């Protein structure tokens, strides 16, 4: 019993103690327990957890992004996916957001493209017809490269003197290469100043704060700036760079961004990480020798000189010919029986018109003596009769000569004696010869008279020869007896070889039995005058 009581008392005691302990516990750590329970609830409930996270997430991202770039990398696919979903769901929303900037972007792109187009058009027109450009085209076609590429390698009219690679944010120099050293020594200072100048230009003149300075010209140098988001490539170019060069710079700037993007973003002044960009810069140092800039005008001068010489030679020939022509025309004017009415000088020929007495000297003979080319001279002569005394005598001589040559002395059959009936004709012949002699003497000519004896067609040949010779001799002798000098006369017998009416079959035979005359006038060597 006492045991039981004891046991009961024990258990009562224990319960009491337990209760007291509980109370004590509640007194001592009651609030903490509730807190733990609350914390438990908050940890178990995702909604509450999110609420908690939302309070600190912005700050957490900010802290993390300052530490390293892992968050950006982690978020990148998410953001891309989100954008994709957004566009798929409602393209209008993104379009509305982009609208304010897209106009500017398009304008800038279009302006850039147009500028490029104008530049190349300019160049195409410039090169258009030059021999060199066609050679390049041929080479491009032959080697399968683009024309631009070939042109770029051959364009010796420019040279990239220096290239600067500049970190855009700090204006610090990342790399520098020069074709020749010594033009600019303080490349890092220049790089900083260039950045400052750009800021200045943008602040002062740029309408948009995003517009970049692209070209500066300083004397014979051009400064071409190629902007990337992180770096600026500045090239000092001499001469006339082709637009293709711009593309080379663009390409290299893009390559530098691709290869050094993270390093550029983390740049803190240590440029040793960018030594590898030298290869990129080296590819920008294009162009040929400056010496080729000064174009040689030797060929032009040579051609000009040759042209000048040719013109001078032509002029000299022309002057000489003109002088010869003047002398020739003067000679024509002074010639009796020739009246020059007009003369003309054309580019390649000369022309003269006028009147000419048929007895006057032949102008062509004079022309031969003038050294002028005969086919370059056109002459037109109208015939006329000159009243010059010289031609009066000549004309009379012609008349007398014709009269004598018409005279015929007839003979009887087989006889060489002149019949009585012909004596008066002989007298006329003698008078005519005397008259001819006087005129010929006056004109400085020697008179020769050939006397021909003829027979009819009957009789033997040798007899006829003898007879014809005898008939001519009879007349010769008669004339000599009458005082005509024998030296003036020649005698020949022509038998029946020269009948009087050769064309007629039948006519009186006696007409062929005759003596005829031929007058020959010879130039007297002692007195000048026209040959007859």
């Amino acid at each position, binding site marked *: 019993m006492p045991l039981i009581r004891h046991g009961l008392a024990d258990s009562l005691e224990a319960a009491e103690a337990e209760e007291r302990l509980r109370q004590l516990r509640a007194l001592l750590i009651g609030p903490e327990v509730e807190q733990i329970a609350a914390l438990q609830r908050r940890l178990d409930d995702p909604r509450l957890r999110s609420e908690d996270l939302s309070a600190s997430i912005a700050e957490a991202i900010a802290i993390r992004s300052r530490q390293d770039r892992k968050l950006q990398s982690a978020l990148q696919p998410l953001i891309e996916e989100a954008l994709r979903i957004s566009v798929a769901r409602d393209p209008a929303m993104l379009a509305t957001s982009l609208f304010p900037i897209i106009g500017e972007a398009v304008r800038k792109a279009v302006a850039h493209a147009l500028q490029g187009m104008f530049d190349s058009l300019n160049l195409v027109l410039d090169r258009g017809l030059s021999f060199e450009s066609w050679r390049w085209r041929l080479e491009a076609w032959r080697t399968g490269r683009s024309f631009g590429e070939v042109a770029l390698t051959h364009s010796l009219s420019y040279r990239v003197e220096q290239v600067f690679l500049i970190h855009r944010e*700090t204006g610090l120099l990342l790399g520098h290469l020069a074709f020749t050293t010594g033009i600019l020594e*303080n490349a*890092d*200072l220049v790089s900083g100043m260039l950045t400052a100048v750009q800021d200045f230009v943008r602040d002062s003149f740029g309408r948009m704060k995003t517009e970049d300075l692209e070209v500066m010209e300083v004397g014979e140098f051009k400064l071409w700036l190629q902007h990337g988001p992180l770096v600026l490539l500045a090239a000092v170019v001499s001469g006339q760079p082709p637009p293709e060069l711009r593309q080379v710079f663009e390409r290299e700037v893009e390559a530098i961004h691709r290869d050094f993007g993270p390093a550029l973003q983390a740049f*803190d002044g240590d*440029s040793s990480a960018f030594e590898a960009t030298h290869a990129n810069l080296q590819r920008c140092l294009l162009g040929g020798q400056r010496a080729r800039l000064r174009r040689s005008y030797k060929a032009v001068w040579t051609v000009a000189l040759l042209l000048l010489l040719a013109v001078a030679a032509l002029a000299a020939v022309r002057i000489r010919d003109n002088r010869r022509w003047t002398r020739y025309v003067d000679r024509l004017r002074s010639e009796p029986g020739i009246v020059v009415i007009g003369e003309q000088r054309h580019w390649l020929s000369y022309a003269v018109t006028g009147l000419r007495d048929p007895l006057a000297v032949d102008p062509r003979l004079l022309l031969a003596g003038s050294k002028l080319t005969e086919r370059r001279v056109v002459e037109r002569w109208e015939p006329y009769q000159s009243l010059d005394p010289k031609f009066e005598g000549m004309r009379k001589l012609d008349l007398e000569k014709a009269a004598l040559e018409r005279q015929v002395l007839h003979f009887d059959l087989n006889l060489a004696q002149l019949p009585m009936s012909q004596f008066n004709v002989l007298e006329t012949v003698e008078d005519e010869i005397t008259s001819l002699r006087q005129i010929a003497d006056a004109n400085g000519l020697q008179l020769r008279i050939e006397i021909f004896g003829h027979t009819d067609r009957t009789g033997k040949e040798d007899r006829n020869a003898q007879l014809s010779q005898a008939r001519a001799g009879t007349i010769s002798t008669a004339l000599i007896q009458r005082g005509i000098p024998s030296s003036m006369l020649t005698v020949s017998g022509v038998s029946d070889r020269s009948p009087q009416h050769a064309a007629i079959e039948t006519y009186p035979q006696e007409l062929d039995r005759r003596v005829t005359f031929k007058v020959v006038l010879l130039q007297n060597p002692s007195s000048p005058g026209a040959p007859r």
Partner: protein
Amino acid sequence: MIQKKICMVGSFGVGKTSLVARYVKSIFSDKYFTTLGVKIDKKSLSVEGEEVNLMLWDLAGEDALTQIKPMQLRGASGYILVSDGCRVSTLDAAIDLQSRVEAELGSLPFTCVVNKVDLRDNWEVDDAALDRLRTLGWSFLLTSAKSGVGVEALFQSLAERMVREKKIDAR
């Protein structure tokens, strides 16, 4: 080789250009200020055995008409606030300027300079004003571009702090 951009900022006429001129031999003439509002000089020095090129961006002094262009501050690793001991207003301006620069660049090493210590007798800036700088927790130097007092130390110490800070970052 390490390059660092340092901006010299301060009111008009406090002697920023003179400090730089005392420190380096300039290749650009002072006329750049009137056109560009900035002049750049370079000084090579050695920090812990490493060569450091300081690119000193000497920005045109602020006055009623000109204000510092944020664009020119961009990319700086440190800056020097210059004030003139003879004009207490320039020190106030420097304190104001500091907050604007910090807003632009974030927290960077900088040194405040009270210049023209050679004219100490004529100073308006008294010990109370200097105490104010101390309470701000700034490192500051008293310099004279005329006598050269404190100039070398100014640039050397700032360069060392910038390099050191970079190394702490890297860790």
